[in-house]
């Protein structure tokens, strides 16, 4: 097999799988699960930013609300953990449908502002509604027994459960990007008026992408609530909407693996710098600025560009 860019994703996926299967034997599993949840969240966000060209500034709404719903289902209504997550996904998809429907009529900064506005509404509801527990959130969420068989209180079982969810979500995103639908999305990203002039109702495609992105963000959020046994205001806060933008840009928007790498980086930094208190924000901000200045395409984006231009540069 000769090396070319086309089988890059395949190679990358194989490598990623091996690392992820072995990882919990080398690293702290809860940390890894956190990385996986944020990686899925960032990849879902990237579907919108990187492949449709829409910058949402309210994705915490989907991530966080699914967390609350899942936590509530599992804790108060004794749902099976997977069923709880799926209800969370349904709610975030519906939210995505409503918010998306209203937001996609605008583009650029207006789109970002509308999504931010709605996310603030969701934040407010999370603070006020009874079942969300206000400032305390929903604590002590039981992980439960998956299908009544697998005990998820066992950290290793939980890890492989989260890994399976991550892989399903990641695969769905990969499939969507490389599908007939994904082709039209890329065409819209590249030149929306042209796509319309070819007969595509671009708003419907954008809305569909928005809903898929919201659903998968919800998948990540619901899973995270089970991992930490907690649903709280942190996950619906606008900081979270900003953090996912940061992860995606850092890793490389519009690349398959970039957002996951970005998530790994940000979560790691957050963990290791936790001792610096409020300095974390400043340090991460500084790292972000220097990364964006140094690698405009993000880390994975820059690597791909190097690989792409390498043969031509060495031919001439």
């Amino acid at each position, binding site marked *: 097999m000769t090396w070319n860019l086309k089988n890059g994703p395949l190679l990358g996926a194989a490598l990623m799988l091996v690392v992820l299967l072995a990882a919990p034997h080398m690293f702290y599993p809860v940390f890894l699960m956190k990385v996986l949840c944020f990686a899925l969240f960032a990849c879902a966000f990237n579907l919108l930013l990187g492949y449709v060209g829409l910058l949402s500034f309210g994705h915490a709404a989907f991530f966080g609300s699914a967390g609350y719903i899942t936590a509530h289902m599992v804790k108060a209504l004794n749902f099976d953990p997977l069923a709880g997550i799926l209800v969370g996904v349904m709610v975030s998809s519906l939210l995505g449908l409503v918010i998306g429907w209203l937001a996609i009529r605008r583009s650029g900064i207006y789109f970002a502002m509308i999504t931010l506005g709605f996310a603030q509404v969701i934040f407010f509801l999370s603070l006020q509604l009874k079942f969300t527990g206000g400032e305390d959130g929903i604590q002590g969420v039981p992980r439960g027994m998956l299908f009544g068989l697998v005990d998820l209180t066992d950290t290793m079982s939980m890890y492989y459960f989260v890994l399976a969810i991550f892989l399903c979500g990641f695969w769905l995103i990969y499939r969507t990007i*490389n599908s*007939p639908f994904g082709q039209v999305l*890329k065409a819209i990203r590249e*030149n929306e*008026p042209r*796509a319309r*002039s070819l*007969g595509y109702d*671009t708003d419907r*495609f954008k809305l569909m992408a928005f809903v898929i992105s919201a659903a998968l963000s919800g998948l990540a959020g619901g899973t995270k609530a089970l991992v930490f046994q907690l649903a709280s205001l942190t996950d619906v806060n606008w900081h979270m909407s900003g953090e996912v933008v940061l992860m995606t840009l850092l890793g490389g928007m519009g690349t398959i693996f970039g957002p996951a790498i970005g998530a790994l980086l940000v979560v790691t930094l957050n963990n290791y710098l936790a001792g610096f208190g409020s300095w974390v924000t400043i340090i991460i901000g500084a790292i972000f600025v220097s990364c964006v200045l140094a690698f405009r395409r993000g880390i994975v984006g820059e690597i791909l560009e190097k690989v792409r231009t390498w043969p031509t540069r060495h031919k001439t």
Partner: protein
Amino acid sequence: MNAEYIIETRNLNKEFSGFIAVRGVNLKVRKGSIHALIGPNGAGKTTVFNLLTKFLEPSSGQIFYKNQNVTGKNSASLARRGLVRSFQISAVFPHLSVLENVRVALQRETKTSFHFWKPDSSLNNLNDRAMAALEEVDLADYAEDVAVELPYGRKRALELATTLALKPEVMLLDEPTSGMGHEDVGRVVDLIRKVAENRTVLMVEHNLKVVADLSDTITVLQRGQILAEGDYEEVSQDPAVLEAYMGGHHA
């Protein structure tokens, strides 16, 4: 109403915050003809195109396509009815391959465009038709290249191939030869003549030789209004046109 005309506008107006760019235009395009829209810079030609394809909302007036009032339709639905336009500034999908550019157009009729669960290799059965469309404009050798890397003239050719791939009933071309070298212009003129055999073409064009070569009917637009209409002989001898348009250019 007359079945002879495929496009008809009635008292079409477009105002941009006080400035009237198109004023009382009654345009009739005969089915099967090549119809040129000419006029000096800023005359409102592109605006008329934008109105016809609903990229702009008319301030007042009506648009009929195949004897149907389509004033309330949107761009995409007009395109699906066979009214497809190109753009004055070349409109390709820059970071898709040349082949993919054409294939996106062909993809629409497969009705799988919302299928996000299918691999995109399911589109490969369109590749032959996409290649055939590229061959028409001599771009077959560039099929694998990224569109953004093509020189300008070839981008225009690619745009033409993409438009043609839809087999539109009416093709609206906004300056199809602008920015092209000499041989390329000749090739595009031949191509337009060939594809116009079984469709209607409405084009905006500054190159008067191209206009003279191709058009059955010419409409001259000036400051948003129709100044003259007829075949090349009539129009080129019209004193008002000579004064306003040709005079300016050939003086």
